[in-house]
Structure formats: C-alpha cells, structure tokens
C-alpha cells in the first residue's frame, strides 16, 4: 500500500515537472527578456555587450530547461565549462556568474508563482519539483566556473615559473641557469625540463647552475637538483653547481645527500671559468695577450 502511494507521488512529480517545462518553453521569449533585463538592471556582466548577454542568456536558458526536463547535468556542465573559458579572460568573476544564475532562478520562480497562484496546493508541488533542480543547476554552473578559474590560475602559475628561471647561453655550448627564490618540487621539475630542452637546442656541453639566490634547500629539493645534474649528463652535458651558501652546504652534509655526482665551484665567476676550461677556452686581457705574443 505504502509503496504504491510512493509510486503515485513519484509519478505526480514527473507530471508536474513536465508541465513546468512546457510552461517555461512556451514563455521562453518573455522569460528570457525579463532575465536579461534583470541582469542589466543589476549591473552584472558589464564587460559584455547587450547582444552577447542575450546570446549567452538564450543558451543558459535552454540548458536550464533541459536539465529540468532530463535531470541530467552533463550537457550543462560542458556548457558551463565552455562559457567560463570564454568569459574568464574578459574579467567576469565568481559573484557575477552566481548572481546571474540566481536571477534566472528567481525569474522562473516568479513566473511559476504567477501561473499557479490560484491553486496553492499545486503551486507547492510545482515548487517542490522546481527548487531542488534549480539549486542543483546553480551549483553546477558555479562549481564549473570556479574549477575553470582554478585551471587558468594553474596555467598562469606555470607560465610565471617558466619566466622566473631563464636558461641563458653565454658562450657557444655554455649555458647559465641562475636560480633565484624558493625551489619546490613543482619548480624543480619545470626548471629541469627547461634546462634539458635548452641543452638540446643549444647543443650545450657545460651548464653552470647558480643557486646563490636560493634561500634554503631541504632533502627533497637537494634530490631534485641531483636529478637535474644526472639528467643533463644523460644528454652529454656537464653541470657545475655554484653559489652554495654555508647554510646550504651544512644542510646538505647533515641530511646526507649524495653529492659525489655534483661538480661544485664556489661562485658563479669561478664556475664560468671552470666551464671555459672544460670547453677549451682561454680568456685573457688584450694587453696581457699582446705581451705574451711579444714574448713568444
């Protein structure tokens, strides 16, 4: 008996939903215009033109009704991601996106209220069916937007990191990698990748990696630096590490990092001199060289 009642009420919810969907479809033009009016009135999406807002509003509206009808948010998720990709570069932020979705919820709710206000019991059932779906839609769009923003931020972080560690060629086959600032695992990974590409494209034989500007090194970072050195050797390049501060030297010895593979020289200048020696360069002052030629 009870299970039967439940089924009946379940069927009724479906009926109510499909009636609701039909109502929204029928009034699509009016509701859409009302929504856009409210968006403009609330000064949301000010960076977009009226035409753009109307076009997006149409898509959101149709997606919205589709979710109410099918109960599946997959298409809306994809659309929300796509929408976010387009509007994030234009400076649209989270409160705005949340704001417009909530406005649409309100516009539709009012329209339902207007239609069913004569039958209070029916209105209640309509709202019972509408509210959870509407909230789910608002959440889906907001979450999709925030996730897309996070993805953009991650990409920007990656780009900033890349800029923060330049690989410089100072002579043919000699690269310098000055590392400044805190090195975490992510940055270590990126600078290794950049260095390896640099070694390959510049056909470098020697790399001077200067860590004067690195404030501290723990076991993880030290192991990353050792890996960088090892990976460069696999490409046939020798790495000279310079600028190990007394503190870092002490840390490395204390934590017992295997430094036998590290070729270290006190400072950057010494490192470059050592590298030039390895490459067979001899640098001397012009006056000295004249003197040495005269004596020959």
């Amino acid at each position, binding site marked *: 008996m009870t299970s039967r009642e439940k089924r009946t009420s379940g069927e009724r919810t479906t009926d109510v939903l499909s009636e609701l969907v039909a109502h929204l479809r029928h009034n699509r033009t009016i509701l859409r215009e009302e929504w856009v009016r409210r968006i403009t009135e609330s000064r949301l999406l000010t960076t977009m033109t009226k035409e753009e807002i109307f076009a997006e509003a149409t898509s959101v509206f149709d997606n919205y009704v589709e979710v109410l009808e099918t109960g599946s948010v997959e298409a809306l998720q994809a659309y929300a991601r796509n929408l976010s990709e387009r509007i994030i570069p234009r400076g649209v932020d989270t409160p705005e996106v949340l704001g417009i979705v909530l406005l649409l919820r309100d516009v539709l709710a009012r329209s339902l209220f207007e239609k069913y206000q004569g039958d209070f019991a029916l209105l209640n059932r309509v709202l019972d069916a509408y509210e959870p779906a509407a909230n789910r839609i608002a959440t889906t769009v907001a979450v999709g937007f925030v996730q897309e923003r996070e993805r953009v931020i991650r990409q920007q972080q990656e780009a900033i990191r890349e800029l923060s560690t330049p690989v410089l060629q100072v002579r043919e086959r000699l690269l310098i990698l000055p590392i400044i600032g805190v090195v975490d695992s992510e940055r270590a990974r990126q600078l290794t990748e950049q260095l390896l590409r640099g*070694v*390959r494209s510049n056909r470098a034989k020697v790399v001077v990696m200067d860590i004067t500007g690195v404030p501290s090194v723990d076991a993880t970072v030290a192991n990353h630096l050792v890996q960088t050195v090892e990976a*460069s050797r696999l490409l046939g390049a020798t790495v000279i590490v310079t600028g190990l501060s007394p503190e870092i030297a002490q840390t490395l010895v204390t934590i017992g990092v295997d430094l036998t593979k590290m070729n270290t020289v006190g400072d950057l200048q010494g490192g470059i001199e050592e590298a030039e020696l390895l490459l067979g360069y001899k640098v001397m002052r012009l006056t000295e060289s004249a003197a040495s030629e005269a004596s020959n």
Partner: protein
Amino acid sequence: MLVPILKQGDYLIASIQSSLADADLIRLRDQLVEQVGRYRSRGVIVDVTVLDVMDSFAVRTLSTLAQMIMLRGAETVIVGVQPDVAFAMVQLGLTLDNVKTALDLEEGLLYLNSRAKRGRSGAG
C-alpha cells in the same frame, strides 16, 4: 626489429630505428659484443634518438653492454637520449652512471676521436 650496425673505421655504430622489445635489445647487445672483437673496434656508439621511453630493462641492458664492451677492450658511448626520456629516467632512478653519454652521433664520434688522439699521444 633488427638494428643495423655500421662499421666505420675503428668504430661500430648501432642506430636504433624504432621501439625495441626486450629480445631485440639483448640481440643487439650480443651482436655488438661479438662484432667488436671480430672487427677489432676501439669504440661503440649506440644511437637511441628514436627511443621515446627507456625503462629499467633498457637501461640495464645498455649498462651491461657497455661493461662487456669494455672487457673486450673498447669504449661505449650512448648518444641521442631525448630530454623527456632523460627526465623520466632520473625519476625512476635510472642514471646509466658508468656509461659515457653524448648529445648526438656527431658528439659521440668527436669524443671517441679525442680519446684515440689522447691515447696515441700518450703512448708516443
């Protein structure tokens, strides 16, 4: 997949042409170790430019190859390890420690030539 082995002067050059299964790599190793004696070669270059992955087996086989070649009186140079491959190798702890590496075939040959020159001038 057969790896062609080219004899050039005192050196043997093996250019890997595509991904190799374990058995192919073992066969390459055995052929090189055999030929280095037959041709009285002084150096062996293995060009791995096309390999898009070098896993523990590949690294271990190249490492034993180099040791066996050394026992036969020649030196091995591995050339052409790609940046991405090197990056993955070191994270796996595969560093090919006791083997000489060079950027590419040209560099590998330069290295072997410089060794030969040094060897001759040292003897003379």
